[in-house]
């Protein structure tokens, strides 16, 4: 086993946040799902909805809430990962050992991602509530989970890049959060502005859906994690092009961030 992974996991599990964050995460997730259940099943004078619909509502609520929470938590684990070595002046010791830059990066990346995945796994009991109502199959659970993992892996790699680029954890974490906001919120705003402009310019032409929109309008959404998650709910044969494109974009972003992080680690001049 890579010594870095063992060291990182040992240190992370000893921190207070090692148990505090999962507890808080489950508490928030449980509260949101309970609230969604209450809203879905309250009869406001309309006919009560079917059990399977409740299951779908709970599942979608859970999937989006989970993604939002994990996007908020991922930078905490990754963005401080290399800067902490700079702050406590241990990076030189690592770089002059026989550990390669790739091993150091992989140790940091795997341990950051593993902790976020631990949170994902701990939410399975909450997810089982949606199963109890029906309407959700194994495919939806699998594709949503896979998509969430790709997004989190990519965000962890980006967080690690900022961690290698900055000297202080606080700066790396702030820029990581700015990136999360940029890809989640700013891309959506840009998309809605672009689509409004497009529709006003093409009033005469009827648009039938996503595939009718030009790439110049839809492009920002391919880096939006919530859109990526939405595309994962499509049946397997309809994953192309939206889900596949999003997956390629996120994997490419993660790969680029990993490459830049390795370059920063090999430069070493800012120790």
């Amino acid at each position: 086993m890579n010594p870095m992974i063992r060291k990182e996991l040992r240190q992370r599990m000893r921190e207070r946040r090692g148990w505090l964050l999962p507890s808080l995460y489950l508490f928030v997730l449980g509260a949101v799902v309970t609230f969604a259940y209450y809203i879905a099943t309250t009869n406001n004078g309309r006919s009560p909805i079917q059990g399977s619909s409740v299951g779908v509502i709970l599942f979608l609520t859970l999937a989006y809430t989970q993604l939002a929470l994990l996007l908020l938590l991922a930078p905490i684990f990754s963005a401080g990962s290399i800067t902490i070595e700079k702050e406590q002046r241990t990076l030189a010791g690592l770089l002059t050992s026989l550990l390669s830059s790739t091993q150091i990066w992989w140790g940091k990346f795997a341990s950051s991602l593993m902790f976020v995945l631990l949170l994902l796994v701990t939410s399975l009991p909450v997810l089982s509530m949606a199963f109890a109502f029906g309407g959700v199959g194994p495919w939806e659970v699998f594709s949503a989970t896979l998509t969430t993992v790709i997004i989190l892996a990519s965000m962890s790699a980006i967080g690690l890049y900022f961690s290698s680029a900055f000297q202080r954890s606080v700066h790396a974490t702030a820029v990581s959060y700015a990136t999360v906001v940029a890809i989640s919120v700013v891309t959506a705003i840009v998309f809605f502005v672009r689509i409004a402009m497009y529709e006003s310019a093409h009033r005469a032409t009827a648009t039938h859906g996503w595939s009718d929109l030009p790439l110049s309008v839809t492009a920002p959404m391919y880096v939006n994690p919530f859109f990526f998650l939405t595309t994962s709910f499509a049946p397997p044969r309809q994953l192309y092009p939206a889900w596949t494109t999003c997956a390629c974009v996120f994997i490419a972003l993660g790969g680029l961030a990993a490459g830049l992080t390795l370059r920063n680690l090999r430069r070493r001049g800012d120790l």
Partner: protein
Amino acid sequence: MIDVEQIRKSFNGTRALDDFTLHVGAGELFGLVGPNGAGKTTLMKVLSTLLPIDSGTAQIGGLNVAKQAREVKRLIGYLPDQPGVYQDMSVREFLEFFADAFQLTGARQRAAVGRALERSGLAGRSRDSVEQLSFGMKQRLVLAKTLLHDPKVLLLDEPATGLDPIARIELREQLKQLQAEGITILISSHILSDLEDICTQIALIGAGHNAEDDEGHSVIQLRAPQAPVRIYEIELLGDNAIAVNIVKSVAGTRLLEYGAGRLVVEITGADEQVAALLRSLVVAGVNVFRFDRRALGLEERYQLVFREKRP
């Protein structure tokens, strides 16, 4: 052992090292002196593979620091000017992690960690958190960590900074001991009295290049490098009279004890000196069946220290 030839290193147009040259022989305890910003830390980082150079060559043990970084890392132990520790680990965990990082596993790791604990004087505190150690103890722990993989060359950047007088004396003694074990040491320090006490030579560095004193020397010779002294036990078949004569005739060799089929010999010098004695014995027809290095015992140590002082 360390050969630096006209190296240059710039940061944003400012030259930190400017045609700097340095040669450190094997087994030397070599000091590096210069004012703040002279380029000492940059040189240490270059030699420890942390910084690439712009031009020139830097070699350790004949290996190019830039092109053979991994092999160089096996040879060197680097102690930065402000070494860090993992406060939330125990002393043993800290050493085990770095032993892992130097690919020491199983029995080799246990032996290396045990040796490091003994060397740092922290054997009784191996379960304590690093956070609980004093600054001096942490410095000893980091030096012990630096020695885990038995490096042939030690690069120490201001190792005495922040240490109290007792800890500085202990560090000096430890460095002398390491030099006696044959380790080449390059040390930078502002505490000139420490360097004067322990170093064989001192190089002067100023504004990134070799500085010279009023006599034009860029390297000050303080004392001849101490050749390593080692004790060997030789066991042989038959009469040892020929072997005794050979030992007495080989330069740099001294007979400490001899008895039936057994000799104890002190050899002063490099490995070639040891090889020369063994070759002489074999060529003379002595049936050597054991030729082993022995750790210095208290008696030999006593002899080595006081032999020259006897009236």
